[in-house]
């Protein structure tokens, strides 16, 4: 039987070759993943073990706590230890003038024999007041040996000019190497004593031990462990580096992510190869029946089919592994050439990288052959004598029942997941529902896809003449085959669409939320209200900006509550945003206040607000985001500190309507319900010229934060608060301006001044860049699955061409030109691709929306969106790929001689 298997393999090799490409691609992906992540890991290991230098063992405290001095003394006493030192790392800053630069400060023992960091020039710090500086930071800052650098004491990561700065003298320049921990900002090395004077908060502390002579690290670690014991952890240097690589989770995350995509590719490959086996089986029905006639048992037929698939799977997987290795090295090399510092080192091939892909490839191939092999055993011996092949089983009952069940529960799951309030359970329900729905669609394929193909085909046929009509019929003459072929593509396109729709919706949501809050392209704001007029002029000079609005303001206190006063020029503001009609419609004598303020003051539109004088002139905490306070929901970011001022009922309220009442005192206190002359609030506009501090509230500005802001015109501001300063510059970009470039120009103009730059354009540009990159990477990874599906189309077509040799010959005899024959096959492929990708785009859009909604919850206000361009591009590429897939089979069909094809059986 084995000889029959081998002979049949040889005979069908040509037909199997193309489909085995699917397995090759998928296993190459798996193998490539392992090689790629192994290489990344080895490179990271190298980087992480650098700072351990010659140390053989490392002691760490659990939870990165600090390391007490007695542990160090204990380690020093361990026999075989020639040197031990305590290392502490502190993430701090370097200060030069008003500029702060992130810095990593490490303690290094004066006579260290660890050998890290490498001294480039000078020597290591030997006493407090001295430091070594990383050579690149020294170069950047133009600092040399003998110069001093400043380190803010007890730095906590917030720019704080008031904090005391310690001056340290640079005694040496060092190279800390490429460990990621030291790669951001400047590197400083000081004595342990100095470090502890600078801070109480070290981030990582450990004891490094260097062993004498030949003492193996494991033995060294064991000896130290006996001395220090719990709760300290002793590791060899190698173990320590491995621990650090793993704890970063980077390689594990990358491996898991890549393997997930490899899994998708394998799934698609499984569909393709199962389809191939099914088609081959139909073509070999007579052969199988003949074997049964001469006495081959069902079991032998089954085993023979499986043996064939095993041989194919093994061969394809081995080729796949080799391809994967090549690709991984290629991609890795390309990435490390493109991105400086991309971790990609040489790696010895691990057994996992060989065994796992081969095993998985083998399993998928054999698994794909199971159903066709079972079908083969059902071929009756008499089929050898019949003219027709086995009648194709109509879609099984079980299959339809399963499909219905999966679809119903799936849709229910998605509905529940979407409607349930934001919650992991909701997402899980929606996710499971989505997976079930998709499986249901795959199962229902034979009932779903052929009608779709017919529909699209009928439309196309009208345009493409005979080839179009012939193709439409051919594409679905075997519904199972058409379904499997389109389904393979469906998987990849659906996933790509989910990603695309997800990204588009996130982008739309971000845009919508920013528009709802304070929709200005670029906002330059100062927490201290001290934007110098020169900066305003600089910003005005940036090309690509069409309009500028200047916000000036101050703060005051009303009933003990701190409120921000924000003065705008309504015309200017209207030019930079169309979304703030209430503020843009202000006229002198009018004001708009934020909702929280309106609530505490119990003001409704039409009331009059009497503004007290500024509390501290020229300083407006309220306009501009306070440091660390990122209440972005706050227009003009005037986050007035919530004072917790609780007004009693009736306090400071007095809603009196009636023209002519132009009173209102100015002492900022009010009491008593119905008090007509309440402080702060009255009604009517003051008619007393400069003395009148009453403004009519025209509107309440809704905001999600707690901001207490009063918006008024520049005229009123100048009248009421002559010392107000510039707190914000709002800018509108020209319609087709390069937002990223403008953002960069604004960043350049504002470096050094304590302002924040935000805005819809800036945020959008940042978001879209991030989302685009993410989308690109995911799309590239999913492209493998789509590629496999395209191989599947080519494969189905090639096998169909083989089956239809005589039909093609007949058509050629009747006058179908070679070109028309090729076109027929091209249209057939394009039809399958179009239906697969159209359905995928539809399903992906649904899944993407359901997924996002269930993930973020209905209350999040997610805006569902699609990038029609992106989806159209996706479908176009899929159809184009389908057309390309038809090229080889079509060429073969067209080349066949009419006469010999007519004669062929």
């Amino acid at each position, binding site marked *: 039987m084995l000889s029959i298997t081998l002979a049949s393999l040889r005979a069908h090799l040509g037909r199997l070759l193309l489909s085995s490409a699917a397995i090759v691609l998928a296993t190459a992906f798996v193998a490539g993943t392992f090689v790629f992540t192994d290489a990344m890991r080895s490179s990271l290991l190298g980087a992480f073990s650098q700072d351990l230098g010659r140390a053989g063992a490392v002691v760490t405290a659990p939870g990165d706590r600090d390391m007490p001095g007695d542990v160090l003394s204990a380690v020093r006493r361990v026999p075989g230890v020639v040197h031990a030192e305590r290392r502490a790392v502190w993430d701090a800053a370097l200060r030069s003038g008003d500029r702060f630069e992130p810095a990593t400060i490490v303690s290094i023992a004066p006579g260290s024999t660890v050998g890290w960091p490498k001294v480039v020039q000078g020597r290591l710090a030997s006493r407090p007041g001295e430091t070594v500086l990383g050579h690149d930071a020294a170069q950047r800052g133009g600092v040399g040996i003998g110069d001093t650098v400043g380190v803010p004491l007890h730095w906590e990561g917030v720019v704080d000019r008031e904090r005391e700065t310690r001056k340290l003298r640079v005694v040496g320049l060092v190279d800390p190497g490429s460990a990621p921990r030291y790669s951001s900002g400047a590197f400083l090395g000081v004595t342990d004593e100095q470090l502890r004077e600078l801070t109480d908060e070290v981030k990582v502390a450990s004891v490094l031990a260097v062993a004498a002579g030949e003492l193996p690290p494991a033995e060294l670690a064991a000896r130290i462990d006996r001395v220090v014991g719990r709760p300290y952890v002793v590791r060899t240097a190698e173990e320590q580096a491995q621990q650090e690589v793993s704890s970063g989770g980077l390689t594990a995350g990358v491996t898991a992510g890549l393997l997930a995509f490899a899994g998708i590719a394998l799934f698609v490959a499984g569909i393709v190869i199962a389809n191939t086996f099914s088609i081959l089986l139909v073509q070999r029905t007579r052969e199988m029946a003949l074997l049964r006639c001469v006495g081959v048992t069902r079991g032998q037929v089954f085993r023979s089919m499986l043996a064939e698939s095993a041989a194919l799977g093994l061969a394809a997987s081995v080729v796949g592994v080799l391809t994967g290795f090549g690709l991984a090295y290629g991609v890795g090399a390309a990435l490390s050439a493109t991105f400086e510092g991309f971790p990609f080192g040489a790696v010895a091939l691990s057994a996992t990288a060989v065994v796992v892909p081969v095993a998985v490839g083998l399993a998928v191939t054999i698994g794909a052959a199971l159903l066709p092999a079972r079908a083969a055993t059902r071929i009756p011996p008499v089929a050898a004598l019949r003219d027709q092949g086995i009648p194709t089983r109509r879609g099984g009952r079980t299959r339809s029942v399963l499909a219905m069940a999966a679809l119903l529960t799936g849709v229910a799951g998605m509905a529940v997941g979407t409607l349930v309030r934001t919650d992991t359970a909701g997402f899980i329900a929606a996710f499971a529902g989505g997976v079930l729905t998709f499986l249901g669609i795959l199962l229902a394929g034979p009932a779903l896809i052929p009608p779709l193909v017919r529909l699209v085909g009928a439309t196309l046929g009208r345009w493409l*003449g*005979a080839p179009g*009509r*012939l193709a439409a*019929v*051919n594409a679905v*003459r075997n519904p199972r085959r058409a379904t499997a072929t389109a389904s393979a593509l469906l998987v990849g396109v659906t996933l790509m669409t989910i990603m695309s729709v997800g990204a588009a919706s996130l982008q739309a949501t971000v845009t919508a939320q920013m528009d709802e809050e304070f929709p200005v392209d670029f906002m330059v704001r100062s927490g201290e209200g001290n934007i110098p007029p020169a900066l305003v002029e600089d910003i005005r000079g940036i090309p690509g900006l069409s309009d500028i609005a200047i916000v000036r303001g101050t703060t005051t206190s009303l009933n003990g509550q701190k409120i921000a006063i924000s003065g705008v020029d309504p015309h200017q503001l209207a030019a930079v945003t169309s979304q703030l009609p209430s503020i843009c419609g202000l006229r002198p004598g009018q004001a708009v206040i934020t909702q929280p303020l309106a609530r505490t003051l119990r003001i409704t539109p039409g009331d009059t607000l009497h503004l007290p004088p500024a509390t501290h002139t020229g300083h407006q905490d309220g306009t501009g985001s306070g440091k660390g306070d990122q209440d972005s929901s706050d227009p003009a970011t005037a986050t007035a500190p919530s004072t917790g001022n609780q007004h009693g009922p009736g306090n400071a309220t007095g809603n009196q309507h009636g023209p002519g009442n132009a009173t209102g005192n100015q002492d900022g206190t009010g009491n008593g319900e119905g008090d007509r002359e309440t402080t702060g609030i009255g009604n009517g506009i003051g008619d007393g010229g400069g003395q009148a501090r009453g403004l009519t509230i025209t509107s309440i500005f809704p905001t999600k934060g707690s901001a207490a802001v009063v918006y008024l015109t520049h005229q009123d501001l100048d009248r009421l608060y002559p010392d107000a300063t510039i707190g914000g510059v709002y800018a509108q970009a020209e319609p087709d301006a390069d937002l990223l470039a403008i953002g960069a120009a604004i960043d350049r103009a504002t470096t050094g001044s304590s302002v924040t730059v935000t805005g819809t354009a800036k945020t959008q540009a940042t978001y879209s860049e991030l989302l685009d990159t993410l989308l690109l990477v995911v799309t590239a990874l999913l492209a493998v699955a789509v590629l496999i599906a395209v191989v599947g189309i080519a494969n189905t077509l090639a096998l169909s061409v083989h089956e239809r040799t*005589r*039909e093609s010959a*007949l*058509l*050629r*005899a*009747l*006058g*179908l*030109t*070679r*070109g*028309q024959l090729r076109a027929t096959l091209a249209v057939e492929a394009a039809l399958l691709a179009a239906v697969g990708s159209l359905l995928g785009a539809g399903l992906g859009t649904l899944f993407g929306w359901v997924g996002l909604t269930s993930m973020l919850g209905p209350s999040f206000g997610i805006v569902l969106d699609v990038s029609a361009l992106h989806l159209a591009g996706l479908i176009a590429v899929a159809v184009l790929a389908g057309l390309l897939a038809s090229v080889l089979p079509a060429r073969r069909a067209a080349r066949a*001689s*009419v*006469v010999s094809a*007519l004669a062929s059986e």
Partner: protein
Amino acid sequence: MSVTARPDSQDMRTWAVSARELVKVYGAGETSVTALRQVSVAFASGTFTAIMGPSGSGKSTLMHCLAGLDTVTSGSVLLGDTELVGLGDKQMTLLRRQRVGFVFQAFNLLPTLTAAQNITLPLDIAGRRGADPAWRDRVIDTLGLRDRLGHLPSELSGGQQQRVACARALITRPDVVFADEPTGNLDSRSSGEVLSFLRMSVHELGQTVVMVTHDAAAASYADRVVFLRDGRRTDEMTEPTVERVLEALKTLER
């Protein structure tokens, strides 16, 4: 045995298709097979000719060469006044599409198309919008296919399938219809129907039919029989009867 009609004879009849010193060699070198040796033959418009000969005598090969399905090694083939030798594949294909009809022994119809669609397939391929309706109806009615038009080939009997094939061959009103053993797979009753129709199409519809067959009964429906042996023209006969044809074949095989 009469004198063979030569395409260059002074006969004023028009030749639908004619071949001159046709040579067809399959393969090359030691394994080459010469299927046709200097065959010259002509078929007048509006006649029904049978080509006969023992198996392997080159009947099919001759038909393929005359119909522009295959290239010739040397010689000349005129379809009407168009020289086929030297034409490219595209021109040959267009020529077949417009001026030649075919009926093969088996596998004449596309299994995915209905009878009606199969009949109009040549027009469809040519991108022509429908046939001359009167002609189409006449062909369909002559063949008695009216009530079978919506059926798929698998739902038709062998005889019906061949009749559909005949209808398809005629739908474009070709210069000549080639039929290669059109009744080879049929019982005698169905054969009779198909052959009667072919004859009718010549005598009543004015078509030209060239039919390859090795069946004397089939050949007796023709106006004229041309004999082949070992790739050579040997003989011909007009107004054949079954007996005369059988006799001629016997001499051939001797």
